[in-house]
């Protein structure tokens, strides 16, 4: 940790640009949590690059005093890939949204994840297109009435965490704008992970999709509807931690801890278990349906062992150079030449 990096505070990461998100937007909280976390990472400001695409969330770089690029729609992941491949020394953060990252940029997202560049993806999910003023997004619920779906959306939505895991992401987590402590904790974990971290952040768009995640974020309903997972701990939720999740074969079921079940019977969360992670991310019930499972939050999966793309690339360059650095004159000559006198 450099001396300068140690002295940094959240204020050092603010810029002179006026923040122009709508008043009450969930982005404000996320920005604040990121600014709180960045000084704790021990990285010099000039070594951090925030790359974004297009959308409300993608305004993020302008408000963060590091190097930054507000690029084009869906391509932040691709730009960050090239940057990280060229400059493995930099701390690269990708800020994207459900439209930017999963619709127009969906292809780049899955390829970024499988390649496992050591970068952090923060996907702000508000289940709506905000900047274009309210069309449904690839995470909007089926039947969602929006400007472009007056009779309700007929698009089946993505489950971003499951998609990320399906693309062989090595770190998959979910948090929310309204739980600062949890979000900070997850961001720190995401940064610690070597490889691509994928963090889905539920973010309220109070203009075009207000209350989309209310049931998960409001005090009154949170306890019953959220499942905060912790490594090595049993999956417990409920008003007085009175419920738990148990695996019945491959099927997760809710059990009542006051009704003959003990914590010993419960599913113990293991972040490194890919099989169980795939079941965990699939817990994605509609909270309005009676008897639904709680929505999981936290770090679902981490594989600390897979090599990053940039390390493999650098190793190949080193191996090639070990056999002899490139010689331009040798290259220009080629294998066969002849003289004209």
């Amino acid at each position, binding site marked *: 940790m450099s001396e300068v990096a140690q002295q940094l505070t959240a204020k050092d990461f603010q810029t002179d640009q006026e923040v122009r998100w709508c008043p009450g937007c969930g982005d404000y909280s996320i920005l604040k949590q990121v600014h709180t976390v960045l000084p704790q990472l021990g990285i010099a400001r000039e070594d951090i690059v925030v790359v974004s695409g297009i959308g409300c969330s993608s305004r993020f770089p302008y408000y963060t005093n590091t190097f930054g690029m507000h690029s084009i729609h869906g391509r932040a992941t*691709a730009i960050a890939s*090239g*940057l990280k491949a*060229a400059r493995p020394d930099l701390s690269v953060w990708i800020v994207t949204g459900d439209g930017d990252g999963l619709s127009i940029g969906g292809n780049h997202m899955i390829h970024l994840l499988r390649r496992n560049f050591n970068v952090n993806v923060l996907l702000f999910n508000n289940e709506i297109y905000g900047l274009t003023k309210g069309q449904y997004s690839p995470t909007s619920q089926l039947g969602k009435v929006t400007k472009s779906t007056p009779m309700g959306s007929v698009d089946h939505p993505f489950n971003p965490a499951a998609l990320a895991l399906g693309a062989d992401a090595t770190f998959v987590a979910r948090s929310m704008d309204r739980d600062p402590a949890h979000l900070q904790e997850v961001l720190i974990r995401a940064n610690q992970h070597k490889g691509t971290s994928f963090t889905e952040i539920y973010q309220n768009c109070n203009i075009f999709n207000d209350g989309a995640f209310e049931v998960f974020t409001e005090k009154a309903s949170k306890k019953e509807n959220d499942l905060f997972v912790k490594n090595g701990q049993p999956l417990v939720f409920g008003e007085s931690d009175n419920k738990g999740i148990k695996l019945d074969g491959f099927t997760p079921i809710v059990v009542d801890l006051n009704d003959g079940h003990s914590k010993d019977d419960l599913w113990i969360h293991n972040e490194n278990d890919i099989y169980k992670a795939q079941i965990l991310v699939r817990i994605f019930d509609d909270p309005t349906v009676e008897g639904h499972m709680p929505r999981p939050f936290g770090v679902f999966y981490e594989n600390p062992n897979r090599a990053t793309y940039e390390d493999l690339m650098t190793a190949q360059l080193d191996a090639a150079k070990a*056999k002899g650095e*490139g010689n331009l004159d040798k*290259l*220009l000559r080629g294998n066969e030449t002849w003289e*004209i006198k």
Partner: protein
Amino acid sequence: MNIQTIEDVVIKFAGDSGDGMQLTGGQFTNNTALMGADLATFPDFPAEIRAPIGTLPGVSGFQLHFGSRKIFTPGDHCDVLVAMNVAALKVNLGNLRKGAIVIVNTDGFDQKNMRLANAETNPLEDGTLDGYVVIKIDVTKLTREALSEIQMGVKEKDRCKNMFVLGFLYYMYSRTLDSTERFLNSKFSKKPDVLEANLRALRAGYNYADTTEVFASRYKVEAAKLEPGTYRSIMGNEAAAMGFVAASQKCGLPLFLGSYPITPASDILHYLSYNKNFGVRTFQAEDEIAAICSSIGASFGGHLAITTTSGPGVALKGEAMGLAVMLEIPLVVVNIQRAGPSTGMPTKTEQADLLQALYGRNGESPMVVISAARPSDAFDVAFESCRIALNHMTPVMMLSDGYIANGAEPWKFPQSKDLPEIPVKFAEPITDGSVYKPYDRDEKLSRPWAIPGTKGLEHRIGGLEKANITGNISYDAENHEFMVKLRDEKVERIADYIPLQKIESGPEKGKVLVLGWGSTYGAIQSAVNQLLADGYSVAHAHVRYLKPFPKNLGEILFNYDKVIVPEINNGQLVKVIRDKYMIPAIPFNKIKGTPITSAELIDVIMKNY
């Protein structure tokens, strides 16, 4: 047997795409280059890797023109055709000079091959080849016999047919087998059986030509009187790849290539991925958009970044090129053009992406455009693209095409010490607390390159309109117009930093100027030089810098009564010339997926003389 010395000859090797004709042609080319003749080649292959055997679409050809004089093109008509089957003969018959030598593999002229090639009668018997010198050889049978002692399947043995043919031609043109023997030894060093089979077939072909008296005379082409020096053979895409490596060495920045495979550009990706010992990073992206975007990321990080593709890929990269224009970062976009529109004819050549290069982005989005004219020229143009991109902080489009990419010619390659340095200066750290201004400019109007990791230079850039100097987002009306004009002026000002347009051949004032660009170079040179020798007042100028044009181009155009612009498209440069200089330039267009020939050019020049 007597040996007849000839000045130049055009040979075409044609067969099924599985017959190894490209390899045969490549070997003969290499051998020809090593004996010092000047040459030009034109590979012509089907889009399908293995089109149905024996059919017309499955024919793969390799045309080679070599001589003891300066050779500009792969030749308009063939003097010698090697046809491995009926289809290969049918496809190439129209392009044969009267009296040409036709060497046929009789095994490829049976009933089955006739049916596959839709031939009702056998062209060897129906008079089709009257007026040609036909040499019939049962290559299949002779190759199998030559390999009778080798334990391998008939299919594997038949794969050596091309070596038999190659050996035959080596004898015919008074060559030695050395270069191909060296090649085979290296290629099959781990497969001794295959090596032995190929060597035997090669020698059998040579000896067969020697012992049977199938032709009256052997031929010899003397070495050409090229400029003294050391030469090698070079293909366009290989030259471009080397140009980028050289530029990387000369600017002291690592080379980054983001690319997605596409015909006919992929070979640049292949070549560069073998140059990791130069620190070259090649990234095969998931699509064309990611390819250019990864390069934009690498450029932002301070690498010399390029992306290679063909027209359809350029279409996909459009928005990202606009971003690079807005970010004002160095980037080279290489378009190895092919016949369009849409998927078009991927393996056929065309130069129809000039207007796309100049105008094919949303908004006012000026980019530098420069073009290679010959295979070896692709080296210089690749190097020059990097120089301009780095010195002027701008994206540059480099144009080449399938004809240049896959064509070969002798190249008096440069020495590393003779190549100019490309000085690059990153913005210096700021330690006094002052605010960095990312869109401040120098006298070239280029902005500083401030790379991440530099203290005090933290800044944010993006695709939104910039306020001049600060680079902050701006929706100000006056600022937008100012910035549009500024970006345009920045590109136009590059004209002060490029060479003036020169006349390749002919008088500085005269009746007709042939104004070309790109791969028509050889054909125009050939035509104009021939007409000059006959006393006509004709000149040739070839435009490398298409945006901005050299400052004296307009002046040159007004020195001739007529300006003819030949292009392998429906008239693109001619539009730009008419628009910019308001002269009645005359288009000559050929859009057949094949190069313009010098004969066609002579014809059109004479019609307008």
